């Protein structure tokens, strides 16, 4: 079975979308450069033309408005930031303008643009290159948020994002870039498209606890689920897929079965999107107090501080598979250290805490 990497999936999504629709253009710092945004835009300028594949000045704010202006005038731009942290410069254009344009002009124009961003991690990304941040835009009606967890999803969601008539924030995680899905974009395009930017998906069945999250969290959740399996806990894993809306049915149907819900989240805990999920589930089940009584809810989000650059510190700045396992065992009131050790032994850890795999050698 052929496999496709996340980066190749993104790249193929660009190619296919651009062939399917002449109005799609790509723009971003480094898009046509030799590193091509981690390879995801490699060769595209040569292949699709200088009039469709652009570098840009360091002007994140205006460029967001420029893409919006182009989007309401017949172009479908994909604007890219190598770190989502840079997109904070364009918050006004995203929130005050792109997200509201369709509503505030009474649906006269739609804004088909994609803002592609990358969450950094490891190798000293430090406080300003490692934030999740999409939770801010999740507070803003009018913009969609796509959070792919696999190469296959990356392809499908990028295609959907480009086709969507609304502004879409597309959020990748740097540590997904090398991951692979079975199959090829060609097959996926034939069989699984079109996809909606909505809806959760059960990606692993289980009966004892529901683990849910977005994007890269799925790696950590599946890792934890595997470890929990070995100590007799069967975890169901739900991929929430998008950030602007919640598929409450899929989620509640899962926890009506498992009675336990844990959400993993890459934001600092203090006001992580995960909390909204818990709150919505609780309110949804409000009429069902007998069920609620038996239920348990936990959020495993990130510590409430920036991520330091030193890997000695940064390794303590993340709550991941191990913390998920610990929290689940606590939910079960299992305090037998032997069980914990047994589970931990099943977790697959990265070769060193600040690199996703042996091939990763920095510097970025």
């Amino acid at each position, binding site marked *: 079975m052929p496999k496709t990497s996340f980066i190749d999936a993104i790249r193929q999504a660009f190619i296919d979308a651009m062939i399917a629709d002449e109005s799609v253009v790509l723009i971003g710092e480094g898009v046509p450069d030799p590193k091509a945004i981690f390879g995801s835009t490699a060769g595209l300028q040569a292949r699709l033309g200088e009039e469709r594949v652009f570098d840009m000045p360091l*002007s994140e704010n205006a460029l967001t408005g420029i893409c919006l202006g182009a989007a309401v005038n017949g*172009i479908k731009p994909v604007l890219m930031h190598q770190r989502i942290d840079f997109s904070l410069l364009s918050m006004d254009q995203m929130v005050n303008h792109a997200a509201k344009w369709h509503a505030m*002009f*009474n649906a006269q124009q739609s804004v088909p643009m994609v803002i592609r961003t990358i969450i950094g991690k490891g190798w000293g990304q430090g406080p300003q290159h490692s934030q999740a941040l999409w939770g801010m835009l999740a507070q803003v009606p009018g913009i969609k948020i796509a959070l792919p967890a696999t190469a296959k999803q990356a392809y499908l969601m990028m295609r959907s994002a480009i086709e969507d008539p609304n502004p879409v924030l597309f959020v990748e995680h740097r540590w997904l870039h090398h991951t692979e899905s079975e199959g090829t974009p060609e097959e996926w395009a034939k069989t699984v498209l079109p996809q909606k930017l909505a809806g959760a998906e059960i990606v692993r069945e289980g009966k004892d606890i529901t683990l849910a999250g977005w994007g890269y969290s799925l790696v950590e959740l599946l890792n934890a689920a595997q470890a929990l399996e070995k100590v007799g806990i069967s975890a169901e894993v739900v991929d929430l897929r998008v950030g602007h809306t919640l598929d409450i049915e899929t989620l509640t149907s899962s926890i009506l079965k498992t009675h336990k819900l844990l959400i993993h989240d890459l934001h600092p805990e203090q006001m992580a999107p995960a909390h909204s999920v818990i709150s919505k589930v609780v309110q949804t089940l409000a009429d069902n107090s007998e069920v609620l009584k038996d239920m348990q809810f936990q959020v495993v989000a990130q510590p409430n501080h920036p991520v330091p650059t030193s890997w000695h510190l940064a390794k303590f700045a993340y709550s991941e598979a191990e913390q998920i396992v610990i929290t689940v065992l606590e939910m079960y009131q299992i305090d037998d250290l032997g069980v914990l050790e047994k589970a931990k032994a099943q977790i697959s850890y990265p070769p060193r805490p600040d690199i996703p795999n042996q091939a990763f050698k920095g510097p970025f």
Partner: protein
Amino acid sequence: MKVLWREMLRIRRFEEMVASQYAEQEMRCPVHLSVGQEAIAVGVCSQLEPEDLVYSNHRAHAHYLAKGGDMTALIAEFYGLENGCVGGWGGSMHLMDLKAGFAGSTPIVGGTVPIATGAAWAQKLKQSSACTVSFLGDGCFEEGGVAESLNFAALHQLPILYVLENNLYSVYTPLEKRQPPRELYKVAEAMGLKSLKGFGNDLEEVLPLVEQALKWIRSGEGPVFLELSTYRWPEHCGPNDDDHLGYRPEGELQRWQARCPIQLAQVNLGIDEIERSQIEAEVKQEIEKCWQQALEGGIPKAENMETNVYA
């Protein structure tokens, strides 16, 4: 040319009507009047084709009307009615009339400057023959997004005309409290744009400058920046005069009123009082008719509030 004079008068009388009706408290939204600045809107927009696009800011009425925006829909919008140009979503600060090429105004200062630049980028990418105009104020020029936009426009040689209406104030704050002594158009010039400057109250001075600018733009010679000096007569926001507040040097308003764009052009064009009063009457009639029609509009339906969010 007389048509243009008429258009200035029409805008003036329209704004005066807004001011006089505002006291009724049924236009329940902030309004920023353009009284005193009409020659710019008319001088620029009269030379555009319908398919050319105009983007504007909080002070948009004159631009909207001069570009051919529907007057009835504008009034209805002030009153928050269903027949408003954006169905009650906009008030005075979020206007759009796509048929006329009035492509949008918003009140976040600087917000539409990049958007207009993007519209021009789209025109270039689509090899359209149309161009875009972005109206901005002297205060707006201080927003970083403007500098970023000018750079992008110059880099890509976009078909866009930036029209800076330098009315010397941002709200109550005079230019010299916000910027060092400098010529604004020279900043744009140094950034790489063809730049022009003129007296914005004199239609006869504005017209050839715009003509020149559009010639460059339409022949693919890239963006042009045009600074036009002018002056706002009424208060920044609202229907009243505010000279008593003392934020403008004594006599400044009067000096500018003596250089009223409409008066100036009337003299230059040799329009006599008979002609004037005839045009006044026509204009008055149009405004009153539109006002009446506008108020016949229904109340917008709340149901579409949620459905408007996503396309």
